[in-house]
């Protein structure tokens, strides 16, 4: 019997990648738990609060986008709106052309990943560098990030050192320290030479128009000290109502992502640089990105737009741990990606409709989610959508016959009683077409269909005597 694509990917995953993904995930999960439970009396109350703030924002998103827009303008930023990836690319290129900009530095941003900005700029003659170390390594390798926080979790130092040498950055050895130092030296000149810095946004306060960026490496700081124009590509769901809400989110984000109390650098950007400040952008543009988000908002998976991209659900997910991020064939991997990627896909839903199946529905993702997204429920809704759209689902046994049986108690009881009928029976969670796939790897317990009912009947008879 055919199995699901993600299962096949996992089966062929190299031992090296599997180990690295697993070790990192286990470690991060433990760090997250430690940080939250040591520091707060009831982290779950905080997660629920954060979820409510985000859901409130989404339920009033039109108002908050407009508020954010006014606040950004008052701060001296120019505001644009992009319908989809292509539109966002075009707007960015126009801004670059207006400034005759040919050199760009970028911070890590899932929104720019979503619109495939790097390759697009390259194709259009703009030199663009990812400045986050992991993303830079992905870039010079023509690879894709496999995790939203630790993008090169699938690579080891040997592979990275080879990529550096191939790219033309010499290394004395493959120590992580040497790799980091070489990147530091290489990137400094790029920051200073850059015309434009392109960033995403972790949050955008509708109240003050402040964009919040968090990094550990300091690359966002450098991008915004070197370049003379700042373009921020911001998903419309990144808005939060008030500055004070950032307290809740910043406290949860760092702990959930890396077990840190606070990310090393938290930057609040409220417009172009101050008049007396020699360094930094004189011009700031904010592009609000839709790219499928309004459609998600209309759907019954709207809660996924609460996501703050911490990666905790990836780290804790037993399926991600076995399959790695690349198994999900999209920008967003793991449980969050299994919902968000197909939900954002619009008319391409069918191509990603298998992603929501890649879950035992264990619920660990919901349990760690800093904004309390009911991920298993959303996975189930997408499974139902796939079924209603009659999309194929390799390896999933059809259950119509089972439903027929389970709504006819007499037939059901007869079936339970006759061991001979075993092969016609829909075992709980284990309908017939899956039987071989089950027995290939596991034994079945002894068939004792109807025994309990007999016992119960006899007992009743006895007590009635």
């Amino acid at each position, binding site marked *: 019997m055919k199995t699901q694509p993600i299962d096949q990917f996992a089966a062929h995953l190299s031992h090296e990648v599997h180990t690295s993904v697993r070790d*990192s995930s286990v*470690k991060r999960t433990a760090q997250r738990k430690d940080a939250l439970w040591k520091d707060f009396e009831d982290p779950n109350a905080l997660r629920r*609060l954060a979820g*409510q703030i985000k*859901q409130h924002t989404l*339920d*009033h*998103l*039109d108002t908050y*986008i407009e508020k954010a827009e006014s606040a950004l303008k008052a701060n001296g930023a120019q505001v*644009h*709106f992009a*319908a989809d990836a292509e*539109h966002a690319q075009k*707007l960015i290129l*126009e801004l670059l052309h207006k400034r005759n900009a040919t050199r760009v530095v970028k911070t890590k941003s899932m929104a720019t990943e979503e619109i495939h900005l790097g390759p697009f700029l390259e194709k259009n003659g703009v030199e663009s560098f990812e*400045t986050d*170390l992991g993303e830079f390594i992905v870039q010079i390798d023509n690879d894709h990030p496999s995790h939203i926080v*630790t993008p090169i979790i699938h690579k080891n*130092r040997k592979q*990275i050192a080879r990529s550096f040498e191939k790219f033309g950055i010499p290394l004395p050895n493959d120590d*992580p320290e040497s*790799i*980091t130092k070489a990147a*530091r030296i290489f*990137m*400094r000149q790029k920051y*200073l030479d850059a015309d434009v810095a392109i960033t995403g946004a972790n949050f955008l306060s509708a109240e*003050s128009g402040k964009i919040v960026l968090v990094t*550990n*490496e*300091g690359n966002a*700081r*450098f991008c915004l*000290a070197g370049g003379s124009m700042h373009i921020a590509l911001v998903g419309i769901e990144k808005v939060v109502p008030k*500055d004070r809400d950032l*307290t*809740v989110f910043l*406290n*949860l984000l760092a702990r959930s992502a*890396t077990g840190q*109390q*606070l990310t*090393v*650098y938290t*930057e*609040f950007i*409220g417009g*172009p640089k*101050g008049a*007396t*400040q*020699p*360094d*930094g952008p004189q011009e700031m543009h904010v592009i*609000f990105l*839709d790219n499928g988000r*309004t459609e998600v*908002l*209309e759907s019954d998976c709207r809660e996924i737009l609460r996501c703050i991209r911490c990666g905790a659900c990836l780290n804790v997910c037993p399926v991600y741990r076995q399959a790695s991020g690349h198994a999900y064939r999209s920008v967003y991997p793991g449980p969050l990606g299994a919902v968000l990627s197909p939900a954002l896909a619009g008319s391409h839903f069918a191509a990603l409709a298998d992603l929501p199946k890649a879950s035992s529905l264990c619920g660990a993702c919901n349990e760690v989610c800093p904004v309390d997204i009911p991920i298993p429920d959303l996975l189930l809704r997408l499974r139902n959508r796939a079924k209603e759209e009659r999309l194929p689902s390799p390896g999933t046994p059809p259950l119509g016959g089972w439903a027929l049986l389970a709504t006819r108690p007499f037939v059901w009881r007869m079936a339970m009683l006759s061991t001979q009928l075993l092969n016609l029976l829909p075992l709980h969670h284990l309908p017939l077409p899956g039987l071989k796939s089950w027995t290939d790897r596991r034994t079945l317990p002894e068939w004792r269909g109807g025994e309990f009912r007999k016992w119960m009947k006899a007992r009743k008879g006895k007590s009635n005597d």
Partner: protein
Amino acid sequence: MTDSSSDTRKAILERVRKSTSLLPEKTPYPDYPNDVARSAPHLQEENPLENFRKNFETAHGIFFDTVSKLKEYLLKENFRVGFCDPALLDIFHSALAPEIELTTTFDRSRIDVCAFGITRAAGAIAETGTIILNDETTCTRLGALAPWVHVAIISPKLIHETIGDAISALGKDPNTIWATGPSKTADVEGILIEGVHGPGVQACLFI
């Protein structure tokens, strides 16, 4: 805004308005206290400065009690040339001379000449050991960022207790940066390395 952008603006807002208007009920904005995320275990010392110091050192910051301790450190590490905010020159020139040379202009073309940068900070956060920088107090963004060592000069009056307090005090500055320890990465095999793009050493001195 270009035509395409303003049309899109309209389309996005209309679509969002329509979908939110169809919701059977809308989630209210929660009522919550300002100290909802206050982390008591990080605030166990006697006063704000001691709390800050403890958390700052946990985040691998170097806390100098006095200017002479700073000088001792710079000499030990052989950091002989540094950038200094002109407003602070009076204090540091005489204290660090003659072994250590200070410059008050930060040259973009020679950013690696300075081993350290001394700039003013806008405040600190006790709960997290965080230093607050902004455009108003940082005379040059690069001077506080590019050198291997950054020494933040802070007034003890400007210590906020919690992240929430510091957020309330953000004000209008176009660029506020919270720095909690040195720049770092764990991208390669999860191994922690300090000093990626920003300072490899984050130090502070309260004056």
